[in-house]
């Protein structure tokens, strides 16, 4: 979850970031390795210094310690310290085999004859000395002369310079590694970003922003990499195929509207033909009884009602196909039109129609008329076909907090797997069958809505929920 923001980054950003991160890790590991090597080198150097110091003093002091020759011991220590300018050897003292100080480079700290014991606290053997972070290290070693242990040497070494060297190396290592890592990270970023540029082009062409894939022009084709060129060409071929398929679907959808009307035409012909008989009779009646005003008025009334019905039917058909209504808001009359259009279809199959519209004009007006009418007409025609003769079809339109609910139910045997795939999924349209259900799916998707399918008690219900633009219904 914490890395969700990272996963959401484009691959052309993520991969260079990972490369830069790996380089930082590599830099840290390398720095740690260098510091560890430096530490071991300093320890080895320290042990060598200590060993040489102790061995040198043992050789120089060997004859004097058994003789308790205080001056000669002091002279050797003093000259040894002057030789190093006192920078490394802070204090060296030599004791006899009884642990009494014979001489020290600083006799005031370790007077002649005093015990050496306090100076051996925390002292390490020359072969075990190592950098501990302390500025002063204490080393104690036996003084061997002619294979005999004749005394003891204790030395305090000032390792401030080694610590500073370590700190200085660590500092420069840090600075150098930061600079190198930044440089390499940037270079890695640029190189990988350049390597991934074709992927970026591909992602962009696949419709990262518009959702519509499009072909990659030749000018943006990668140069030199046969694999990538093949990939791009394959993609272009796939994009062309997808475009062709979308175009075909668009054409089918457009045709579907006319198919729907076609299916309505016979019932509509009845709808028009039935009043025509009455109208003809009324016209005959007027012609025959022109002298009888009451009969003429009655016949004229009949003609007027018949023409009115015909006018409504023709308006509904026109409205269904008028392009300039595409952006008009939905209104209760649109639902009346649908009933007018679908009612005869249901009646012709002796189907019972349960028509309930509970949404008011304001709730309906928040949705576009054309796609909603198309959705409902397709679903109703599909339900009417599924319900069969003497079946039952129902429409329920209501407004809910999450938008407008359109429920079309029928007493048919239910949708087949292929029909469900057309209605509910976005995958390829299964072969066979019409595109009406897929058109519903595409229209609902385009409006940001969702489709629910329920099958229970020999009743199939398709519920379309269209979200209200700008907020929930009141």
């Amino acid at each position, binding site marked *: 979850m914490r890395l969700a923001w990272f996963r959401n980054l484009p691959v052309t950003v993520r991969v260079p970031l990972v490369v830069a991160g790996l380089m930082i890790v590599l830099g840290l590991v390398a720095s740690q390795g260098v510091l560890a090597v430096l530490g071991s080198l300093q320890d080895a150097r320290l042990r060598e210094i200590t060993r040489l110091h102790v061995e040198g003093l043992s050789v120089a002091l060997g004859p004097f310690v058994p003789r308790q020759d*205080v*001056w000669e011991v002091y*002279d050797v220590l*003093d000259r040894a310290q002057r030789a190093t300018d006192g920078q490394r050897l802070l204090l060296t003292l030599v004791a006899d085999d009884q642990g009494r100080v014979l001489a020290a480079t600083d006799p*005031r700290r370790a*007077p*002649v004859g005093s015990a050496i014991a306090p100076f051996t606290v925390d002292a390490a053997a020359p072969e075990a000395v190592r950098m501990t972070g302390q500025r002063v290290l204490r080393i104690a070693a036996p003084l061997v002369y002619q294979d005999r242990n004749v005394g003891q040497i204790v030395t305090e070494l000032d390792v401030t310079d080694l610590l500073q060297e370590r700190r200085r190396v660590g500092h420069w290592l840090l600075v150098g590694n930061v600079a190198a890592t930044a440089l390499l990270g940037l270079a890695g970023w640029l190189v990988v970003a350049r390597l991934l540029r074709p992927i970026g082009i591909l992602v962009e062409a696949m419709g990262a922003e518009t959702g519509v894939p499009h072909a990659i022009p030749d000018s943006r084709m990668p140069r030199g990499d046969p694999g990538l060129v093949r990939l791009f060409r394959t993609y272009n071929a796939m994009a062309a195929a997808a475009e062709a398929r979308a175009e075909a679907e668009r054409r089918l959808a457009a045709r579907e509207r006319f198919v729907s009307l076609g299916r309505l035409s016979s019932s509509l012909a009845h709808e028009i033909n039935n009043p025509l008989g009455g109208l003809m009779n009324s016209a005959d009646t007027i012609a025959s009884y022109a002298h009888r005003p009451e009969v003429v008025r009655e016949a004229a009334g009949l003609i007027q009602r018949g023409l009115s019905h015909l006018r409504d039917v023709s308006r509904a058909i026109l409205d269904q196909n008028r392009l300039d209504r595409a952006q008009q808001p939905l209104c209760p009359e649109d639902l009346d039109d649908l009933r007018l259009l679908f009612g005869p279809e249901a009646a012709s199959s002796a189907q019972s129609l349960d028509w309930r519209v509970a949404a008011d004009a304001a709730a309906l007006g928040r949705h576009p008329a054309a796609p909603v009418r198309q959705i409902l007409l397709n679903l109703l025609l599909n339900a009417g076909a599924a319900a069969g003769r003497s079946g039952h079809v129902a429409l329920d339109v209501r407004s809910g907090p999450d938008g407008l609910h359109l429920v079309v139910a029928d007493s048919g045997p239910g949708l087949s797997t292929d029909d469900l795939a057309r209605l509910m999924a976005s995958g390829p349209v299964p072969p066979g069958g019409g595109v009406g259900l897929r058109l519903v799916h595409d229209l609902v998707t385009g409006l940001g809505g969702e489709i629910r399918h329920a099958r229970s008690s020999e009743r199939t219900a398709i519920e379309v929920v269209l979200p209200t633009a700008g907020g929930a219904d009141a």
Partner: protein
Amino acid sequence: MLTTRRAFLSCPVVLAAGMAAAVAAAPFRFALTPVFLDNDAAVLSALRAALAHGLTSDVELVQRRTYQEITGALLDGSVDAAWTCGYPFLEHRNALTILGAPVWRGKPRYQSYLIVADDDPATGLSDLAGGIHAFSDPDSNSGFLVTASDLAGIGQTPDTYFSRTIFTYGHRNVVRAVAGGLARSGSVDGYVWETLAEAEPDLTARTRVIARSEWLGFPPFVARGDRLSEAGVAACRATLLALGRNAPGREALRLLRLDGVTPAGPALYDGIARRMSAIRVLR
């Protein structure tokens, strides 16, 4: 000695020819002790040049660690002459003779200094009991005899009076021992301390003189008495006494901070003889 001289004078031609051959064959060996700044190469070089100026043979400077070694070499003939201390001279006054005594600050005398560290509150020998004391050499007048005889005067010896005594075999080393804190106090040649004060003021500045002895005979140039008539020894004596009269000699004297070399007899060292008597009584 008279016999030798007489024989030498009676056979001048033969002996002169033989001596010339001997001189040409063997260098003149002149021994030095830590009585002066024997660690200074420039001083050694200048002294060798000054001696070579008056001697016909090559000069070999022989350095030994102790007066005892120098005295032994003189007595057994390993060296022809030496610059030693009045104390070993007096101890072997029957065998040795003085070629000359250096003149320092106008007289052939010097003092022994009792020194402590510059931050030590001691004001005299009586404050130093129980401490560590640095001597130069057990055969040194200023570096041992003076303090030992002073202690003898109160019925003490260095071993009983001090907690520990250290022999450094060099007056400069005594100053180092006290300045470095190895010893609380030290007995040092006053001439050496004063010369060090000019050459190495940082070293002497860390010490303080708390007592000075009476003026005593300056460490003399000596040779075996029975060899005084030898041409080399005689030439050495003449060269030493004439140091102030030639350029190499003056350069050596300048570096040694000496005025010259003067003829001297055993009487110059009566003061040292008295101190020798004092410790002899205690023994």
